[in-house]
């Protein structure tokens, strides 16, 4: 970049009266040269960058995409920023007097962007270098890369890839120098001077920050990774060195706890740590609670009452089934899915991000203990080894890193938490809206939709009360279907006794024992099943109606009423048809008075005695079971139908009517028989 300006300069150096002006002019000249240099180098820099990004990168197909990402990092972003910068720089060329000032302002403007974009590139530069080294190990690959680069950029030379990758680094560090050069050649009282000065220091800061960022990233990446080691791996890591480190730290910690050694109080850091701990707690708790909520939601969706069939064709039951199915197939799954994507996932990511800082805080404490030990030693001995220095530097690095970034972390985390909670609220509202929309249709079709809610509630209560009574009635009805009457066969030899009881008490008072009774008290009787007794009283002297006083024909005593059943003397003319509830103490006792209720029975005189009967007076006549008799009159002189006048074996006399039977009997009632 030589020009004629130099020649002019040398010709003027001699004149004394122009001394004031000459340096000025020389400065101006140098200044414009520097400006030109700035712009021209920017142009060629950008050109090289573009070649890298497009031609070279696209030709390096044999490398995996992941590698290319590491190698070239955010070169596209750099190109974008620098293109803009260049464009603006070139524009300033039109405004000659103010150019320098404009350039200063420009760099101040671009300071932030440059820092952001270059810091990323620089951070990944180390890794890129490692990759380049790896490629160099493979001669074939290396040759291919070399060929590609040489085809595009011959000036890259034999170091090819590494030469290219370092160019952005070189450029960003060059800016302060270039600006410095312009500044040197600017008069201190020029209006551009302060701006330029600020710009220069700004770019210097950029470089410093980038370095700091790089250093922190290295420190952080060393310690943030939570290593999941197996026990064996952990054991393998223990060696003399680590062991001594840990015991030293432990010793230091104990000394602090015991008060032997002052703890380095760092209130600022402790506050930060506490704050971070709360954030951590908040995130973890929220995550667990949301997990529980999702589990419960899942459980809720598992139950599907709408799937049961009550065989009801229409009305609210059907409405409910449609609505519930609709909600369960669409509204709720959508809600669940949105919850998972917009609340649960972010919470998981946030929770994961906690691990890094947590680790670093732990590591810092370790390093602090080391550092304190070193300080002690320094006091004792007066010097420290290289390792001990390193420990101190490490602690300081960690500490400054954490102090700088923990507040930012907290702020970002809390902001994100807020957003997540807001999303949660919105999702609930949306769910409610969905449900209401779908329920609208069903609601309109309900029979009482026009009634207000309190009135409806009362209505339902009343309706349910009524139907409850109805159900109760059904239940009672069903319970009244009683067990069938069981007529026990008479015990042998009991007929005499039965007949004796019968004649004394009459047929309505006879009861048969349904199951064995064993009496316990003095007045209680012990009777076998089938025994027939006569009822004297249906309660005992204390009024207990479940204990009845009976006469067995020989003894009198008490028996439990539950074990007695009315003994059917098989009255002939019972009408039980059409009776829905045959009670035990109901109409069975009194036989129908006349024979007329029996369906037309042919007048048969053929009568048979069913039971034996012993005459006790001259008016009566004895019977044998199965004996045929002739009925003369079906009642006695007083009109009592319980006695019949019969003739048997040539003898006449009265016998109990119920001991007689007709044969063959009338047609059996029941379902229609075949003709």
């Amino acid at each position, binding site marked *: 970049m030589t020009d004629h300006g130099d020649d002019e300069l040398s010709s003027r150096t001699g004149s004394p009266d122009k001394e004031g002006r000459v340096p000025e002019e020389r400065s101006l000249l140098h200044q414009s040269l520097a400006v030109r240099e700035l712009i021209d180098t920017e142009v060629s820099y950008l050109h090289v960058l573009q070649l890298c990004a497009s031609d070279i990168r696209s030709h390096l197909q044999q490398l995996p995409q992941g590698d290319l990402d590491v190698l070239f990092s955010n070169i596209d972003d750099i190109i974008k920023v620098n293109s803009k910068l260049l464009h603006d720089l070139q524009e300033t060329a039109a405004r000659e007097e103010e150019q320098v000032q404009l350039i200063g302002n420009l760099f101040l403007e671009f300071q932030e962007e440059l820092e952001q974009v270059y810091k990323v590139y620089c951070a990944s530069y180390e890794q890129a270098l490692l990759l380049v080294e790896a490629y160099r190990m493979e001669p074939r690959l290396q040759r291919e890369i070399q060929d590609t680069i040489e085809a595009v950029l011959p000036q890259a030379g034999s170091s090819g890839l590494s030469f290219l990758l370092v160019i952005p680094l070189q450029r960003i560090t060059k800016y302060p120098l270039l600006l410095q050069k312009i500044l040197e050649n600017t008069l201190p009282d020029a209006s551009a001077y302060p701006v330029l000065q600020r710009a220069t220091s700004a770019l210097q800061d950029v470089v410093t920050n980038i370095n700091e960022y790089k250093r922190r990233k290295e420190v952080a990446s060393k310690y943030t990774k939570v290593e999941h080691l197996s026990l064996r791996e952990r054991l393998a890591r223990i060696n003399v060195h680590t062991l001594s480190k840990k015991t030293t730290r432990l010793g230091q910690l104990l000394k602090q706890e015991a008060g032997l050694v002052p703890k380095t109080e760092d209130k600022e850091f402790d506050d930060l740590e506490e704050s971070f701990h709360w954030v951590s707690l908040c995130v973890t708790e*929220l995550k667990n609670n949301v997990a529980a909520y999702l589990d419960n939601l899942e459980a809720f969706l598992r139950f599907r009452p709408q799937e049961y069939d009550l065989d009801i064709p229409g009305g609210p039951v059907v409405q409910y089934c449609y609505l519930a199915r609709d909600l369960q197939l669409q509204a709720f799954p959508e809600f669940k899915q949105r919850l998972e994507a917009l609340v649960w996932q972010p919470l998981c990511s946030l929770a994961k*991000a906690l691990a890094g800082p947590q680790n670093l805080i732990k590591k810092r404490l370790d390093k602090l203990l080391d550092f304190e030990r070193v300080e002690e030693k320094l006091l004792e001995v007066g010097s420290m080894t290289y390792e001990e220095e390193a420990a101190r530097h490490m602690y300081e690095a960690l500490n400054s890193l954490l102090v700088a970034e923990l507040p930012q972390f907290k702020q970002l985390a809390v902001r994100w938490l807020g957003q997540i909670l807001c999303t949660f609220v919105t999702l609930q509202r949306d769910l409610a809206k969905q449900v209401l929309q779908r329920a609208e249709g069903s609601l309109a079709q309900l029979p009482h939709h026009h009634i207000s809610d309190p009135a409806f509630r009362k209505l339902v209560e009343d309706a349910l009360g009524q139907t409850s009574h109805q159900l109760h009635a059904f239940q009672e009805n069903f319970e009244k279907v009683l067990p069938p009457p069981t007529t026990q066969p008479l015990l042998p030899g009991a007929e005499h006794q039965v007949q004796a009881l019968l004649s004394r008490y009459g047929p309505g008072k006879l009861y048969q024992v349904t199951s064995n009774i064993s009496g316990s008290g003095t007045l209680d009787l012990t009777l076998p099943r089938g025994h027939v007794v006569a009822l004297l009283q249906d309660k005992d002297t204390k009024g207990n109606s479940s204990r009845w006083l009976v006469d067995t024909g020989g003894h009198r005593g008490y028996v439990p009423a539950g074990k007695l059943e009315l003994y059917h003397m098989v009255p002939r003319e019972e009408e039980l048809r059409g009776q829905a509830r045959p009670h035990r103490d109901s109409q069975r006792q009194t036989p129908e008075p006349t024979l007329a209720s029996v369906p037309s029975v042919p007048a048969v005189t053929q009568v048979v005695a069913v039971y034996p009967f012993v005459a006790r007076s001259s008016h009566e006549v004895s019977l044998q079971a199965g004996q045929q008799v002739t009925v003369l009159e079906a009642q006695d002189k007083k009109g009592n139908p319980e006695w019949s006048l019969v003739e048997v074996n040539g003898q006449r006399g009265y016998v109990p009517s119920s001991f007689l039977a007709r044969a063959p009997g009338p047609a059996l009632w029941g379902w229609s028989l075949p003709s």
Partner: protein
Amino acid sequence: MRLAPSSRPASSGQRGAGLTSLPGDWLNPEAIPQDRVAAEDPGGRARFGTMSWIPFKIGQPKKQIVPKTVERDFEREYGKLQQLEEQTKRLQKDMKKSTDADLAMSKSAVKISLDLLSNPLCEQDQDFLNMVTALDTAMKRMDAFNQEKVNQIQKTVIEPLKKFGSVFPSLNMAVKRREQALQDYRRLQAKVEKYEEKEKTGPVLAKLHQAREELRPVRDDFEAKNKQLLDEMPRFYNSRLDYFQPSFESLIRAQVVYYSEMHKIFGDLTQQLAQPGRPDEQRERENEARLSELRALSIVADD
């Protein structure tokens, strides 16, 4: 094929003398000639109910005592009721489980805001505190409404279901008793028929008479039970319509009330937190942005 009257003594001879052979037949049902069991009535109707599942084959009346149509009707009605019983039982159980899960969900929502409120972050950050307080209020109110909803469902759906189901045991017992009566009826009928076939001597007539007298009340009892059940069962089945419609209407309305409140409360809260409606993709992008911001910090591990 019907056995001619004259062959009766012979057939009874086949089985041995009179009643005393019966116990033996209980142990060996094959002693009953098959044609006797499968015989048709003279009217041409097939014998109904050979009831081969009954262990004792003795006591099978020749005459058909319950017409097939009646039995079919009975089984159809009872079948429907059995189906209804099962469905109501399961529905009640499922409803209970559903409401339990509903309550659990609401409780866990309340826990979310409760834990947030107890975190010391609230003391440091006023905005955070405001948001969490508003959220907590909303959750608590929603929980109260949810409890109300569940109570209403308990009262108007689950309790009635239980009551409805409690009728079935009585019904089942009644049906069992009818069946018992039917068996007794059959047994006594067979006995009567047996005596009818015998020669009409005095003792036989007496026994026949006694058997008939024994049969009558049992038969009447069965008929009564049968009629009662045939009347009551359809009525009971049909009552389900009147019974369940109010319950389910109440169920729908209770849900609508709850979700209306939910919409209002969370709608207001959304407005208050100044989060306008944004599409989900936008929210997702924002989440990504927040994550990137965090990852940009060196102290956050990127993996």
